[in-house]
Each structure stands twice: as C-alpha cells, then as structure tokens.
C-alpha cells in the first residue's frame, strides 16, 4: 500500500484552502478525515499531486445553535455528532445514524462534510440528512451558497459541490417535539456500509394522522433519495394501516445497484421491508 508521491498542504482557514485549491486546480484535492480518499491513494487509483488538508480549520469542527437551527461544521467527526448533546436532543436521528457508521476508528476520523461531499451510494448520512431536510453550505472563491439536501445529491457520487469548493456546514431545523424517527440499516457484511439504509421521520396531528413524513433511502440506487411516493402515500393518514401499503413504494422508479452482495431485486425488497419497519418504529415513537 504505497501511494504515489504527492505534496501535502495544510490550510488554516477556509479562505486559504480555497486559494490553494484554486492554485492547484485539477491536481488538488481536499483531505478531511481521509477515510475515503486515502485508501484510494494507497491503491494508486487516486493520485492527486496536491492534498489540501482542511483538518486544521477549527471553525469547521464545531456544532453550534444559531437562528433556531443546529449547525454542524463540515469537519465534525461522526463520533462528535453521535455524542453531541445538542444533536441528541434536537436531531436524534442524526446521532442515531452517526452511531452506525463504520467502526470506532472510522467514526473518530470520518467527517460529515467528507461523507456528504463524497456521496458514496452506500453512505449512511445522506439518508438522514435528506429526511431531516438539511441545508448544506458550500463556499467557493466567488462566495457561498446554501443547497437543500433534496437538491444536493445529483447523481452517482456527484453533488452540488464543484471542484475547488468546500462544504463548510450543514444546518438543520430541530426535529419537532413528538416526532418519531429512526435510522435502520442493513449492513453489507464485509464493509459495514449500508446495503440499504432507511431514515424515517414522522409527526402526527391531533387526530393521530401523519402530518409530516420524511423517508430518506441510501444504498439502493446510484444516489440517495427521498422516497416521495412513500411519503405521499402516508401523509394525512393514520400510520398503522397505511404504512405497509406506503412502504411498498420505497423502490419505485429506482434502478437498484447490484453487486456480489445483493442483486437489484433483493436490494429493492430490502428497501421496502426496511422502510416499513423504520416507519413502524417512527410511528411507535411519535406522540400525537
């Protein structure tokens, strides 16, 4: 495991990182937790000439509350998200999700920014970030913009982040009290990534009908997505009888991935079953 030679640069601010990225252009690559990039470099499948390490940019590594939102810096590790009191109290699903990413070492190094920017089709976070309506802030030399999770994942491992840009933070509105949620994952047995991962969140109105439903699914298709057909089928209905029928739409319109671990039709079936189960758990936890 001997990577090709490269130059290492450490940025101390977002501004400096952006300048470095501009300078090295196509030869430059951001290094965050390194848990996706470095294995590839060791296999020499990736051979960036310049690594811009953003690991030292302090302000990207904090979780804060501002303007009624919880804001998680791009460099916050999976472990920090899992353990944060604020996240636990206000975005429980996100900490539940962070807790099942990889193993302890991975969670201690991997970052939310890296995971989202990388957009592995089997990554866990995207499902939860979709279900929580996260807003992703991207900074470039020309300024910054905010992209809704729903618009962030464009295609297989393609996101709204352009080369030369830095994903600086993800903002979430706190989950309504009384909401029920869960993140349910079927692990690929070797890698531990999601063969299928379903993030489900629902709130009930006074009559006990669903007045907000969010289902984010990862692992099934080329990109993570919100299962809008499932959401629509459940909205305004009482969960108990409607969930099974709604969950049957989990794989609608998706061309599922297929590999040695699971064929396309098994993945689709897993998505339906896990969606139903995730919604059942969410419903059981929700308070009218």
């Amino acid at each position, binding site marked *: *495991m*001997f*990577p*090709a*030679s490269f130059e290492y640069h450490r940025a101390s601010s977002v501004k400096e990182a952006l300048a470095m990225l501009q300078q090295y252009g196509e030869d430059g690559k951001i290094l965050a937790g390194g848990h996706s990039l470095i294995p590839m470099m060791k*296999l*020499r499948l990736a051979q960036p000439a310049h690594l811009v390490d953003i690991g030292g940019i302090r302000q990207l590594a904090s979780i804060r509350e501002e303007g009624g939102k919880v804001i998680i810096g791009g460099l916050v590790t999976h472990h920090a998200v899992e353990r944060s009191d604020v996240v636990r109290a206000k975005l429980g699903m996100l900490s539940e999700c962070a807790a099942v990413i990889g*193993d302890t070492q991975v969670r201690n190094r991997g970052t939310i920014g890296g995971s989202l920017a990388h957009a592995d089709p089997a990554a866990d976070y995207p499902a939860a970030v979709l279900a929580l309506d996260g807003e992703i802030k991207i900074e470039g030399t020309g300024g910054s913009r905010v992209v809704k999770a729903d618009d962030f994942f464009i295609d297989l491992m393609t996101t709204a982040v352009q080369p030369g840009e830095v994903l600086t933070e993800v903002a979430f509105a706190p989950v309504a009290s009384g909401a029920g949620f869960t993140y349910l994952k*079927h692990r690929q*047995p*070797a*890698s*531990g990534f999601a063969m299928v991962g379903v993030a489900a969140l629902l709130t009930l109105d006074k009559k006990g009908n669903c007045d907000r439903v969010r289902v984010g699914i990862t692992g099934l298709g080329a990109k993570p997505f919100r299962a809008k057909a499932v959401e629509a089928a459940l909205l305004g209905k009482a969960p108990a009888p409607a969930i099974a029928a709604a969950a049957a739409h989990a794989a609608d319109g998706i061309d599922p991935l297929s590999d*040695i*671990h*699971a*064929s396309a039709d*098994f993945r689709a*079936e*897993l998505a339906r*079953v896990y969606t139903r189960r995730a919604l059942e758990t969410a419903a059981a936890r929700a308070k009218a």
Partner: protein
Amino acid sequence: MAVIPKFVGERIKRREDPRLITGTGMYVDDVRLPGMLSAVVLRSPHAHAKINSIDLSKARALKGVVCVLSGDDLRDKVGPVPCVAPADHVPYHPVLAQGKVRFVGEGVAVAVASSPYIAQDALDLIDVDYDPLDAVVDPEKALEPGAPVLHEEFGNNSVTFASVPNPAVDEAMRKADKIIKARLVNQRLAPIPMEPRGAVARWDGGYKQLTVWSSTQIPHLLRSQLAEMLKVGENRIRVIAPEVGGGFGCKLNVYAEEALVAHLSMTLGKPVKWIERRRENFAGTTHGRDQITYLEVAALKDGTVTAVKAHFVCDMGAYLQLLTPAIPGFSGLMMTGCYKIPALSFDQQMVFTNKMSTDAYRGAGRPEACYIAERVMDMVAAEFGLDPADVRRKNFIPKEAFPAPTAGGLVYDSGDYELSLNKALEIVGYQKVRAEQEAARKQGRYIGIGIASYVEICGIGPSALLPPKLKGGGWESATIRMEPDCKVTVLTGVSPHGQGQETTFAQIVADELGIDIDDVNVVHGDTAVVQYGIGTFGSRGTTVGGPALMMSVGKLQEKMKKIASTMMEVPPDQLIFTNRTVALASDPSKSIPLQQVVDAAYGYKQPIPGVEPGLDATSFYEPQNCTFPFGTHVAVVEVDPETGVVKFLRYVAVDDCGRILSPLLVEGQVHGGIAQGIAQALYEEVVYDESGQLLTATLMDYAVPKAHMLPRYELSATVTPSPVNVLGVKGVGEAGTIGSTPCVVSAVMDALKPFGIRHIDMPLKPEKVWRAIRDAQQKG
C-alpha cells in the same frame, strides 16, 4: 520458601500475549537491516493470457531502482515452486510467470528498489503485452471438452482422478429403503491471517550463509525446499519464523516470493524484503475448500445409514502448491464422521482452473467431510420424519467400539459421541427449545435448532500418512536443556503462531521438573537454534510436539535422578521433582535443591560414573496413530423470513480434545475456530467472475465476520483421553471450525423446514435464504 503450584490444567494466561498486545513482538516487517532493499511484485490482471513481451527498460531506468526482473530472467536460476503431494499432472510452477499467466495475481515481474514506494513506481513503468485467452473458473466446466486448457502439456485440466471403490456400497444401495441424493458445495474461502505473508532474506557472502525470515508455519520444511530451489546446502540456510500473525494453513506452504527474495539477496548482495499487501494476500495466497460433492446415501426407515457413495470435484486452482492435491483425500476418508456407516466409496476428480491454488485451510479436508456427514444425518432425519438427534444416536459408533476401525480405513483412537451429544442437548435444553420453536412457528417466527456431532483427525501423524516427497515425516522433535542457573530452555520443532505452546509447554515442564513456569523459556521457529522439526499444522503442536517434549523431559529427569541418587544415596526410582528440589517420593522433606544437582552436572568436579556432564536431551517422537477429537455443537437461530437474515439465539459447543492442559487456551482455540466455521456457513466466499477476475480482493468485499456477527459461545467439554500419546491429548486447533459450519447450516435448514426447504448452499447469505423462501412460497 513458597510452594510452587502445579500449572497443567490451570487457567493460565498466554505468556506470549503481553509482548503482542504491547507491540513488542517482532514480525517479519519489523526486521530492518542496514542496506535493506524492498521488493514489490507486479501481478497479472488477467486470469489467462499469453505474455507476448515485457518491457522492463523504463522501470530499470528509474532512479533508486536496483533491479527489475521477469520470469524469463530467472529461468534455470530459481527452481520451481514445489508440490510434494502426489498427482498425475504436476505442472511446472515458475516463481514468476514464464510465457503465460494462469490466474489473476500471478507474479509477472519483480522490482527491487531502495524503498517500497520507488519499487511500486517502477512497477507502474513496466509494460506487459498480454494476449488474453479464455479463462475457465468453474471446475465442472473445466472438465468439459473444449474448455480452455491451462497447461497444454497435459491436454486437459485434470490434475488427478482418485478412486476408492467398494462393492459393499452397491449391495447396501440395493437393500436401502431410500437412496438420498444431494449435491453439496464447500465454497472457496480465503484464510486471511491478520498478518499477511512476508519474507526478508540476507545473504552473507563471506560466510556463505543465507538467512530468511518468513511468516511461515514450517521453518524447517521451508529450509529444505529453499535449499532445493536455490541449490544451496541446508547447512548454509537459516530460516527464522519470527512472530507469525496467524496462518490457518495458508502458511503451511512454500511460496514463490520466499525463494525470490533469497535469490535477489544472493545476487544483489544486500538484504531484500518483500511484504505482502492485503490485496495480494487475497489473490496470491492459497485459498481453502472449493469442493463439490455428489452424494448418494443408502438409508433405512429407522434412520440407519448403511452406505455412502460420493463423487468429488475438487478445484485445485491454476498450479499445485505444497500440498494442494493432498487435501481432498481427508474429506473422502473422514466422510463417515462419528458414524458406524459400514460401507463407503468415493472418487475424486481434481481440476485445474484459472484461480489461485487451494491448499490447507483450518481443518483441511475434515470440515468438508464433517459437513457432508452432518448434512447426511439431517437429510435422513428429514426424509423419514425423525428427530435429528435420534438419527445421530442411532448411527454413532458406540463407546465400547474403540479403538474403532472405520469404513474409510482409519482407526479412531477413543470417543464417546453420545455423551457429548447428550451434554450439548442438556445445556441447550433441547426439549424446551423444541417447544419454543413450535410456539414461535405458530406466531410466524422461524426458529431453528441445528446439531452437528463431529470427529476429526489431529496429531498428524504417523509419517506414512504424509506425502512421500515431503522432506520430513509426521514426527516431531524437542530438546530440553537445564541451564547452569537452573532455568530451562525448551527447543520445540513445532512452530506456534497463535497456538500458545510457549505457555502449554512451559506448564508441562514446570510441573514435571517442580519449577516455576517463569523458569521455562520455550524457543521455536529458528532453524539455526532448533533441531529439525516439522512445524505447526493439523492441530499437531501439542499432540505430537508435546509427547516429543515429554520424551526429552523423561531423559533429563532420568539423568538428574541418577546424579541426585549418588548425592542422596537413595535409588533413582524413589526420587521426584518438587518445589525446585529433588526429593524422596515417600518423604519429600528429604530433598536436595535442584540447583545442587545442576551444579554437579555442569561443574562435574566430581565425575559421576555413567553420567556425562551437561544437562540436555533431544527426542524425536513418531506417533503410532492420529488422534480423533470430537464433540457436538448446537445452535439455535432465528431466520427473518422477510430479509433472509439469520440471527443467533444460542450457541453451545461441547468439545472433547482429550486431556485439557490449558483450559483458557483450549477455549481460545474453540472461540476462534467457531468464528471461522460460522464464517463459512454464513458469510465468507471467494468470488471470481466468469472471466476469472477476483471480486473479493479486499476486506470491503470479503466478509470476515465482526464480533457483532457472532453469537455468545456457551462452551463445555467432555474429557476422553487419547490412548495414542502419554499426555492423553487430542488437539483442538481446528475442532471449532469443523463442528460449527454444519451446525449452523443445520439450524438454518431446521428453521426453514416449514417452507419445505431442505438445502441451500453456503454461505447462507440473506439473499439466498430470502430467495429460497420466496421460491418455496411461490411453489407452495
């Protein structure tokens, strides 16, 4: 003075562990020598291709590169990679491919440079012009006419066809109430030691001395083979197996790279290191299993099995490694398991395919055999609607029958199979679990109870059982030396790499000599220090190495007693060793300190008639038979019918490895063994695509189980000493692996019984289970 306790039978922690868990053990990659160079091997991306040309010029020109060689450069310089097991077709196996590549990962060229980074850069500059050929991956297809032929000189892909006929089988088939047929697959597995392979070689030209550090299970056998490959005298080669981070059979071998670094060091005059990367380990270190068995079983209505007939197709891969074609034989011979099945016949077709060679992997032939025997018992139970435990009882070799000759021609040493089954069922609460299963089924939950009673071969073994071409037999050696300060050095011919003989042997010696365990140092794995030995494999370390040690201990004791007898003026046979003294057996308070005896032997100021100075003894022990450990494993699982996921509810293992010297170590071996056996049942599989590309080349795709994928083990034991050796031990290195695989499969099949499903091939991945349920539901 404090009384020194006894150590054998106590729960002693492994004495090798402190250095391992504090990072102070020394592995091959820790060997750093002045001027050392790094070698990296370029590997074939093709499963089957003609090599038109290899351009090394750009690589050779790179700064820091010392040398770059391809297979043609080594013709006549390094002998072929050896296979000592007999086969009709033993292909020439060059250390680097010559003219043709036959599997993905085959070495094509080697670059040597001042650092592995530069060597790797050099590989990127090598241009190989390949002409891809059609590949054959499926061993049954490889036998069809028109299949691509790997080794043209043989005309086809057959390695060997071996047949053990028996007319009594046909007779039994005629009389059977039912002939049950099945096709069982033992899938291909990768051994995955935590430490991949690696070798460092240093040639000292002035002394004409070659030192090779290798992560191997067999330092002496490796020395013999290297001598042959390199044409250097064995007395000029020193092989050191430093800390070895697991082997599981894949390091019971001689590999191209070991000879390669030695040759490079001899020609370059500098030390050369090669360390295997994980991807190379998946592609280029031997795999295990990969057998297809077509079975016919003659059974009577009462569950009695009267005959078993089998046809095996065994995938050997592209070349034959050290013992490749010898492994399947064990599967055939052991196929009748713990059962008094009177008639057995089988034949084995071994086949070349465009894959890595198979060879020994934890259990080596016996897991396959046990899997077959236990599937047979379950199929018979299912066929006649009998309880699988009863079918096993019906067919067990009774305890009175030992030593018990088997239909496979072996003689099992000792056993009480029913005792072990009963104990396991009692621990699990068999009747209660069956009732729970019944109740669960009514709620649409699918619980299954799996049973596997296994017997296996350990302590291999009488030398005649080993391949004729193997240098060295089935014996083992040990030297014991009482040093002048009363501390003991043991030199054992086995080469432990996780088995813990530094602990067990110290326990034995401490007890036998009445000294503290800390007074004993067990040395192994260095051919310049240790007398010729055979190595560690087939659960033989304690079973064969132990008795060898006991012989040496006996010789040493005899000599010390003689000396003490002259000093104490009592006959030697009345003396014992206790509490660092030699004492009178009838009255241990009459004693002299051990140190005085040792001083007399080394100082020798007063010559002792008939006793030479010094205090050491060496022995070579040739076992008269193998040992046959056995046991019963019971698993309770629940299958999620919607996802096919198998969840463990209970796992009970009752193992009988004869006398237990070190309970903690036995449990450790059983734990690891069960994990690997469960891995075969549920998770692991080496996958090549149709064109021979290896699709499980990293740990992200090859599913080695993590702790959360395994059950909590409930372990117990029965103790049936082996009459074969003085220690009464049987061996326990592989038992867990052998019992657990069929046990888990049995449990899953039992859970799926309501669907009418009788068999699914391993690994029982969720998708396969789900598909079987879905198909059954659609049919029903």
